[in-house]
């Protein structure tokens, strides 16, 4: 059925003989997903990425929800560190704790933050040869004005782990 759907989108299947496909695509489920995916591919190939199919719009809204900081700086670094212990505390302590001892918690934030900052400084630098920065290699290949290297790349940039 997916084959037929693909053929229909490519214009290789008469629309009159595709009533059953359209009906099941409308009904939802797997075929509806495929319908969206195949159209997404078509849009990308034609360079029409602004059309509002569910998949691309979901990606876009997820992106919009992400805060984007254009220039990394030290201030941002501290804010991010402060946010980590906050979520940990929320999980491990009750709301009552908060209402009674908010100021104590605030002091704790600072304590944890200082501790973590110290940890960062204690990590000894490693020789780069021990740890190939794959994500940098791929980002370089993706941005270089001319390239052939990506025909042999082994992993996607977005899958990099710290």
């Amino acid at each position, binding site marked *: 059925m997916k084959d037929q759907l693909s053929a229909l989108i490519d214009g290789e299947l008469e629309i009159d003989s595709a009533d059953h496909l359209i009906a099941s695509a409308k009904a939802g489920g797997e075929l509806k997903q495929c319908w969206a995916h195949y159209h997404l*591919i078509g849009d*990308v190939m034609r360079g029409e*990425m602004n059309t509002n199919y569910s998949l691309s719009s979901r990606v876009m809204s997820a*992106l919009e929800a992400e805060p984007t900081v254009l220039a*990394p700086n030290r201030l941002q670094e501290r804010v991010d560190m402060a946010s980590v212990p906050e979520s940990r505390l929320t999980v491990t302590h009750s709301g009552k704790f908060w209402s009674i001892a908010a100021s104590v918690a605030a002091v704790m934030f600072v304590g944890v933050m200082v501790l973590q900052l110290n940890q960062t400084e204690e990590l000894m630098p490693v020789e780069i040869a021990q740890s190939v920065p794959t994500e940098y290699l791929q*980002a*370089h290949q993706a*941005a270089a004005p001319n390239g052939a290297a990506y*025909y042999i790349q082994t992993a*996607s940039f977005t899958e990099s782990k710290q």
Partner: protein
Amino acid sequence: MLRFFGALFLSLLSISSLAADDAWLSLQKSAYAARELNYQGVFVYQNGKQKSSVQITHMNNAGREMTRNVVLDNSSQANQPREVYSQGSDIVIMRQKNQKMVIEKRRGQNLFPAMLPTDLRAIKASYTATLGPKEYIAGREAQVIDLVSNDALRYSYKIWADTEYGLLLKMTLVDNNNKTLEQIEFTQLSTLNSQDVNWFQPKIDVSKSYEMQDKTAVNHVESDWIVAELPAGYVKVDHRALVVPGKATPVDQMIFSDGISSVSLFIEPLNKGMRPKTGRMGIGSTNVCAHVLDGYQITVVGEVPPATVMQIAKAVSFKKQTASNK
């Protein structure tokens, strides 16, 4: 007698400068041929121990340039691109990731055999072109052109251009000891006579679902990082902010190019748990240099000699006056 030698010297001089002009003309013809001709074939790309065969179909349909590249031997590697489509400067890459197909979009890269830019001015400043012998590549007669670096800040190239059509048939990247680091060449090539464009659409694999890769870069950003002194001949061609899942702050990426060789500079704050990296390493034609500056990880990556990545890594600094205003 003196006059005779003078005349001889002058004529030799003009012959050699004519020969250099011819070499640049051949390169210019080659740059256009890759974009204007209709052809299909198979090329093999090799870098270090890695190797890949790619089937290419290229058509220029009344100024609309279309290319399809299909990777032929990627059964063993997940995540490798399977198909690369380009139309003008838009590039779409389809790669397999587990049971999904991921669609990635890029812009403005010069892909083989259109590796040479049509504007050769930047390259002329840093390289010397000379004509070599004639050799056969994929059954076609080719003119060898040596594109030799004028200094130690970039590698040299050897180019084989079809004597009849100018199309780039083979290209190698050679270091200063004349060792080949990277090679890309046609093993099969023929002209494409049909005007049919049905090949320009991906083969949909109905057993897989498709998704767009999350956007990983914001192009053309500004930041307070400066590179005080770039290696001669290199200019900044782009500045992006890479959004990397799992990283709290985007990674700054600046791209420098001398017209054909390029280098990326990455800057990111050393957040908690991140192990700083220092030192230098080489993988195939690529050199990497890393160091730490003021709580930031600096990493430089490029298909250039070690001296070039090290020079860029050392030249990075923060614009002090802007920083103190914050």
